[in-house]
C-alpha cells in the first residue's frame, strides 16, 4: 500500500514542478516589445495585428487591413513593363483614429503613405494610385513560378492613435515578358 502512495506523491511533485515553475519562468522571459494580438496565414499571405504592450493587446480596436486582389498587369505585351495595384486597401480603428497606412513593395521601398485626418477608418481605392506601381515584368520563371514572371513581395501597414498596428504581407506575380 505504501509504494503506490509514494508513486502518486512523486507524480504530483513532477506535475507541480512542470506546470507551476515553467510558466513563471516563461513569463519572466517574455520580451517587453510589441505583442502579436492576432495572426493568420493563407498560403503565401500573412495578416497580423500587433500592440506595443500586453495591456493594449487585450481588446484591439484596429481591424485587419482589407487589401483584396493584388494585381500585376502588363498593358503592352511588347514592353517589359508591368504595374502592381490593389483593388483597394481599407482599415478601421473606431473609436480610435487612423494615423497612417503605408504601402511597401519590397523591391521598391515605400511607394505610398496615406495620413489620417481625424478619421476612424481609411479607404484607398485603386484609382487613387494612378495606373499602379511600375515594375519590370521579368522573364518566365524568374519569380519562382515556371508559368509566371517576376514575383514582388509587398507589405501594407497601418497604425492607429492607440499605437496598435495592423499589417498584411503578400506576394504578387507578374505576367512574364519574352517569347
Amino acid at each position, binding site marked *: 500500500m505504501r509504494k503506490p502512495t509514494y508513486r502518486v506523491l512523486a507524480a504530483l511533485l513532477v506535475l507541480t514542478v512542470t506546470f507551476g515553475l515553467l510558466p513563471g519562468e516563461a513569463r519572466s522571459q517574455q520580451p517587453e516589445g510589441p505583442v502579436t494580438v492576432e495572426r493568420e496565414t493563407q498560403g503565401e499571405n500573412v495578416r497580423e495585428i500587433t500592440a506595443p504592450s500586453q495591456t493594449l493587446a487585450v481588446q484591439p480596436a484596429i481591424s485587419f487591413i482589407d487589401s483584396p486582389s493584388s494585381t500585376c498587369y502588363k498593358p*503592352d505585351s511588347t514592353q517589359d513593363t508591368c504595374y502592381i495595384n490593389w483593388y483597394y486597401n481599407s482599415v478601421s480603428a473606431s473609436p480610435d483614429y487612423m494615423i497612417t497606412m503605408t504601402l511597401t513593395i519590397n523591391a521598391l521601398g515605400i511607394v505610398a503613405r496615406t495620413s489620417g485626418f481625424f478619421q476612424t477608418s481609411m479607404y484607398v481605392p485603386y484609382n487613387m494610385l494612378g495606373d499602379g506601381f511600375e515594375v519590370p515584368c521579368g522573364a518566365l520563371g524568374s519569380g519562382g513560378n515556371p508559368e509566371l514572371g517576376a514575383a514582388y513581395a509587398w507589405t501594407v501597414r497601418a497604425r492607429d492613435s492607440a499605437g496598435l498596428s495592423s499589417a498584411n504581407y503578400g506576394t504578387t506575380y507578374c505576367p512574364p515578358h519574352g517569347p
Partner: protein
Amino acid sequence: MKASGWRMALAGVLALIGLTLGWGMLAAGHVPTIAAAPPSGTPEVLRPEPQGTPQVSAVTTLQNPSPTCYRPVAGTGSCYIQWAYLNAVASSSQYVISMTVTIDGRLHAYHSGFFQTSMYIPGDLYGPGFRVTCGFPSGAGDGLGNAYSYVVRARDTSGDLATNSGTVICPADVVRLFLPVTRRQ
C-alpha cells in the same frame, strides 16, 4: 484468459467497423468536382483552351461581361482590349487564390487573392486596357481587323478552376505615315 480473448475479439471487430466507416467517408468526400485539386502553393499550370465559341465554367462563379476591343485614335494602329469587369466567387467557404487574363496565349494580368471569398476587378483598373494591333481590314468589307482569343481563369482553395474563354474582334486600323514631299529646284 477467456475474458482476455473476448476483449481481443471485440476490439478487433470494433477496429474493423471503424476502418470500414472511415474508408466509406473518405471515398464519399473525395469526388473531384472539376479538376484534380492541386496541393496548395503549387504553381498553377495553364492549359490550352478551345477557342472560338465562348465557353463558361459553372463551378466557381466567373463573369467577364462585355469584352471590347476599341481604337481610341485612328491612324495609330493601336487598339485596346477591355472588359466591363471581372468577377470570381469561390465555392462555399473557400478563398479565391488567383485570377488570370490571357490574350492570344499570352498572360496579361495575374491577380492574387488575399483572404477573400470573391474577387472583383473593375475594367479601369487596367487603365485603357491591353494594347493590341488593330490589324488590316478583312476582305469582308465590314471594317473589322484582327480577332483575339482570350481566356479568364479563377482558382479557389478547394482546387476548383473556373475558365471562361472567347474571342474579341477589333476595328481595323493601320498606321498612317505622312512623309513630306518636297520638289527639287
